[in-house]
């Protein structure tokens, strides 16, 4: 195994190092990589969009399936361009209103399902110390999110317990995630040492 002779591997390796140089400080290499990534990813995004949306979701249904329903989003999409003209700019509110309405409408039932699932999962089907702690934890955390009561007296004390639970949870989640994040770096190191430099195999 030796240094890679593949032109593309070299590009990937140099770009990788350019991003890491940001850890030292902002510098021309990082800037180059950053602007390149933003530029290429938009170019890529537009191409994917052209392929997945314009062709598959608008052109094909319109031309082959004679599905004229897609004219509605097409029109709504065109209304977004009213932003370019000051006197009709307000028209762009219509597609936004549509999109937000659909989004909130969809989120209501899914919030419900989530609510039910969480309560269902918390139900004490068997009695042990863990279940008792979970019930106490859920209730005290919920009390912490009480907004219409001042957190004083009993409510205050329970919400303190809630904060304690939240802090333990954050500490645990933080510690638990480190392994996954270190793995990401290991992945890049393997690429650099093995695919590019060929030091390890």
């Amino acid at each position, binding site marked *: 195994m030796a240094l890679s002779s593949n032109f593309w591997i070299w590009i990937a390796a140099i770009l990788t190092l350019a991003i890491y140089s940001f850890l030292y400080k902002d510098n021309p290499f990082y800037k180059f990589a*950053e602007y390149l990534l933003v530029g290429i990813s938009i170019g890529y995004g537009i191409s994917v969009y052209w392929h997945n949306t314009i062709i598959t979701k608008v052109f094909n249904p319109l031309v082959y399936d004679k599905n004229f329903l897609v004219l509605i989003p097409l029109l709504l999409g065109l209304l977004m361009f009213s*932003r370019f003209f000051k006197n009709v700019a307000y028209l762009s509110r219509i597609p936004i209103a549509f999109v937000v309405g659909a989004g909130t409408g969809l989120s209501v039932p899914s919030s419900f399902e989530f609510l039910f699932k969480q309560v269902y999962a918390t139900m004490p089907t068997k*009695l042990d110390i863990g279940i008792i702690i979970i*019930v106490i934890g859920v209730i005290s955390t919920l009390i912490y999110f*009480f907004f219409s009561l001042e957190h004083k007296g009993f409510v205050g004390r329970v919400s303190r317990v809630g904060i304690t639970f939240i802090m333990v949870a954050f500490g645990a989640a933080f510690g638990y995630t480190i392994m996954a994040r270190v793995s990401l770096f290991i992945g890049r190191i393997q690429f650099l040492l093995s695919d590019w430099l060929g030091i390890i195999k």
Partner: protein
Amino acid sequence: MKKIFFFILSISLFILIFSQEKPILTFLGEDTPDSIVKNFTIDASDIPNDGGGGIELKWDSPEILKDWFISIIRIDEDGKRVLLTTDIPILSKQVRDVNSEEEPDRVIDSKGYNYWGILSKKFITEELLQILLDTFDFKEGLYSFNDDTFFVLSKTQMVYSKASWFNFLRLAVLISLIIISLTFLYYLNLAKKGKDLYIRKINGLDAVEEAVGRSTEMGKPIMYILGIGYVTDIPTIAGLTILGRVAKKVAEYETKILVPSYDPVVMTTAQEVVKEAFTEAGRPDLYNKNDIMYITQDQFGYAAGVDGMMMREKPGAIFLQGLFFAESLILAETGHSIGAIQISGTTETAQLPFFVAACDYTLIGEEMMAASVYLQKEPMMLGSIAAEDFLKVIIMSILVLGFLLSFLGSGLKIEFFKNLFDILYQALQV
């Protein structure tokens, strides 16, 4: 007619036998060695609570058939044959005939279908499958093909699929939706009538003024990051609402606000939000559309772009409000390294620990959604917060009730409470 067809088929098979050594399909008789096989039936029925286009097939799995496979062929009113499945273990007990809209052979509502089951101990070969789909005259009984025997089973009754007008599985959700809507309406009404409603202190939000003020003193801009959500995401909308309040403060302090965006719809909306806030503050002249710019719709491309912008513009205060995923800490750590005051908030629980670690103030989950209410303190908005709290009381009551019932039922072994608990438990399942 069918008999003639079968006759011709038999003759042609006969010819085939003698003309060449091709695989042969022979009918061995209606009698089957295992009476159980005879009694094996498939039930076909419309799938309830769906939008139509689906039929469910079920069968028992007797012990004697545990090593067998079943293949199913669907024949519609017009005689068109479609292969539903081949060689699935009898043990699986059911299969659903559901296809996507694009599939030309999908089940169509109010068209009649029969299903034939083919039981075999070995896999059905491609050749046999072709015969079954093309020329085979379906008749119950035992057959042999290439030395392997298999059974053809009685067809199911004619089934029709139909779409339902109400999904009964979601009844519990509908009932609670009605209850919750009524709760909201009650509290909104209460607020309308002028009842004083209270909202507790939210630390991070009191710091908005301080953050904007200090940043202005240092002559640095403010940066507002809405994360990588779309306008359809509730946290993003909450973030946009907070943006309106922050932008107003920014206009009052006559400083600059930068909003790098991930989604173009969010960008255009943010532009309008900031513009209106500046107008409200009486400084429409300070509004610059180009300060609210699009970066890219690529998670880490966005993170790279915003990081670079932070390093070069050196904002004095950074707001991270919206939907954040893995990029949360990349942004928050870079923001910290340039010494900005950071106020963050998100509903992504997985990212909250990182915001808490890296930012000065963090709005945790619901606090962020309540922020717009806190910042505006309009009676109607406060009413909705009070309704949310009332619902929390209901949830807590259910949990406490569940706990008590479980204690009495499972702990003290009182049957009555155990049954009550089971009822409650079932009701919560959606």
